[in-house]
């Protein structure tokens, strides 16, 4: 189609340019064609293609293809296609152009073979995606977008700093295994960790994603965190610290998800929970674990996309997204409800849905490598994700009490995108081997044996039973309009307030210093005016006669002395 050496991001950037200058149907065709043609082209690219160039004394590798980057490449083409289809009704050049640039940046990052190229696309990811948040055009979105941008750009700065230290230590620019053995390794790890939403570094995600436009969140959920997962898989596989970080990531967000009212924010917390499974897999680092992590990233983009699409559809149609205001929508949005439940079943890892075939790989790997406590944490998180994403999302939006909202199905393109995603979820769940063939390592794993299926069904159905029991006996916490404090409290409340207090505390000292300075200045002025002022000794006018007299005296003295 086009030359082999053309990196996959190029068509996306050209597409963004064309989208910027076209309108209506032509733009729709261009936007849909780019991921389709790009994806077909990528299918013909083999691992091993490399494009290098010299820049000053350094070798840059803007395009490096191997099995790991190829899989993410396919995934991002699918995600772009779904996102574009879902957003086809949107008449907003800003969103459509930035979405294309954002997807292109993600592709650029996963095919980057060196740190400089990675850094460029890392920052482009931040700069292009923030417009999907700002495009909501509300004050809240503007603020959240700004916070998002600052944190994301900071991640890029850390990456650049790490790269420079790495170079200084004698490392090369090639983006390969890094490890935590040096300062450079830690800096880069932290940069990846921010984008990957590590605990305490995660709040940009739950802050900004729910503020984006209904269609924008679908793009956002697909790319940034998955690029970070890819980067961790490339730079830090087998780093044990990741096992524990990942385990925390699977567990803590589900508590927030249970009490969160904004259903898209529930999904954002659930996104961190799912990324946690991937991080655990990368940390374990065996072939099975890495395969599981990568396969789960692939599935997560599709089922999380589907869930965000279904909630976006609810928001688009009803203008509401809080669990406390929704309910009973299955009556008027049955198709959306059904598609949402496919996504819910997939994220909960029901057998025959996509999550099952990938999540169980990570769980099995954790057991095989003897991480018993981590395995228990993952099991807890599996039950928890079913609870908040599998049940809570569809239940409070589409069932629960009848909110009285009489909506209608979303536009056809939205339904179509959700249907394609749902079909993919079920297809991968039923026939996982196509995905398994694409994984970085040869797969020797059978998800569908009786033990796995029975165990998983027991876990899920008893979780559902727990929900039902809690709900029937009124023990389930009601959906309340509220804000739940999270790590963001530190930079949205604690630090600003501390700064304000500090300023307030310094004010008396400042006032004292100023007053003292004023007094000192006044004294100086007074002194000066005494000597130089109108009545001052030094300011008096001297009669010419006295000057002549004094000169005569001086001359007289001179004569006497010499």
């Amino acid at each position, binding site marked *: 189609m086009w030359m082999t050496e053309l990196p996959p991001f190029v068509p996306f950037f050209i597409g963004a340019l064309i989208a910027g200058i076209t309108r209506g149907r032509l733009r729709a065709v261009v936007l849909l064609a780019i991921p389709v043609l790009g994806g077909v082209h990528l299918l013909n690219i083999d691992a091993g293609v490399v494009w290098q160039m010299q820049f000053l004394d350094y070798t840059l590798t803007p395009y490096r293809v191997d099995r790991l980057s190829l899989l993410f490449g396919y995934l991002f083409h699918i995600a772009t296609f779904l996102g574009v289809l879902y957003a086809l009704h949107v008449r907003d050049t800003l969103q459509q152009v930035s979405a294309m640039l954002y997807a292109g940046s993600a592709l650029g990052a996963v095919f980057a073979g060196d740190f400089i190229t990675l850094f460029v696309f890392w920052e482009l990811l931040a700069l292009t995606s923030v417009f999907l948040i700002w495009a909501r055009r509300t004050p*809240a979105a503007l603020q959240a977008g700004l916070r998002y941008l600052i944190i994301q750009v900071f991640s890029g700065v850390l990456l650049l700093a790490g790269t420079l230290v790495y170079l200084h230590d004698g490392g090369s620019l090639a983006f390969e295994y890094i490890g935590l053995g040096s300062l450079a390794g830690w800096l880069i790890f932290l940069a990846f960790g921010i984008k990957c939403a590590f605990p305490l570094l995660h709040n940009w995600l739950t802050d900004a994603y729910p503020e984006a436009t209904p269609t924008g969140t679908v793009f956002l959920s697909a790319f940034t965190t998955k690029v970070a997962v890819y980067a961790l898989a490339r730079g830090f596989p087998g780093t044990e610290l990741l096992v524990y970080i990942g385990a925390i990531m699977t567990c803590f967000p589900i508590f927030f998800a249970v009490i969160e009212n904004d259903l898209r924010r529930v999904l954002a917390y659930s996104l961190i929970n799912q990324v946690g499974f991937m991080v655990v897999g990368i940390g374990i680092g065996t072939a099975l674990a890495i395969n599981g992590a990568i396969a789960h990233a692939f599935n997560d983009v599709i089922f999380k996309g589907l869930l965000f699409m279904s909630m976006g559809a609810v928001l688009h149609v009803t203008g509401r997204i809080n669990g406390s205001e929704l309910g009973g929508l299955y009556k008027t949005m049955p198709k959306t409800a059904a598609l949402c439940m496919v996504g819910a079943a997939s994220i909960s890892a029901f057998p025959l849905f996509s999550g099952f075939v990938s999540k169980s790989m990570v769980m099995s790997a954790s057991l095989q490598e003897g991480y018993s406590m981590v395995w228990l944490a993952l099991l807890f998180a599996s039950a928890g994700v079913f609870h908040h994403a599998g049940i809570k999302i569809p239940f409070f939006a589409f069932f629960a009490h009848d909110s009285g909202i009489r909506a209608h199905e979303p536009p056809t393109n939205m339904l179509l995108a959700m249907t394609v995603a749902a079909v993919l979820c079920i297809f991968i769940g039923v026939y996982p081997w196509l995905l398994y063939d694409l994984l970085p390592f040869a797969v020797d794993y059978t998800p569908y044996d009786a033990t796995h299926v029975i165990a998983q069904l027991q876990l899920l159905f008893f979780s559902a039973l727990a929900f039902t029991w809690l709900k029937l006996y009124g023990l389930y916490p009601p959906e309340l309009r509220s804000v739940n404090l999270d790590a963001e409290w530190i930079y949205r409340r604690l630090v600003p307030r501390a700064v304000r207090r500090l300023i307030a505390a310094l004010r008396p000292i400042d006032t004292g210093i100023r007053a003292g300075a004023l007094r000192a200045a006044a004294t100086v002025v007074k002194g000066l005016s005494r000597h130089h002022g109108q009545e001052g000794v030094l300011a008096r006018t001297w009669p010419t006669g006295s000057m002549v007299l004094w000169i005569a005296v001086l001359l007289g003295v001179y004569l006497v002395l010499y």
Partner: protein
Amino acid sequence: MSRERQHIFDNPNNVRRVVRTLVGICIGLVAIDFIYHRHVTHPWEGLWGFYAFFGFAACVALVLIAKEMRKLVMRSEDYYTRGEGGEGTDVDD
């Protein structure tokens, strides 16, 4: 409105039916543990009904802890945007 009454869960009997089916499936699933021995990696996995009880207990614990957590972390919706707060003065609503 007459069409709306026909919606499936407007009839409490249907809700009851769903709950009963769920309970039935659950009983069936733990019953399998009597006749089928799951091959296990971890000793706890082999305990009778381990996954079933773990799933139930995990969810109940999750919800009850989250409920308590509300006392600690829940604030009114305008917490961050109120004039006094962090960046509240910057937000113009």
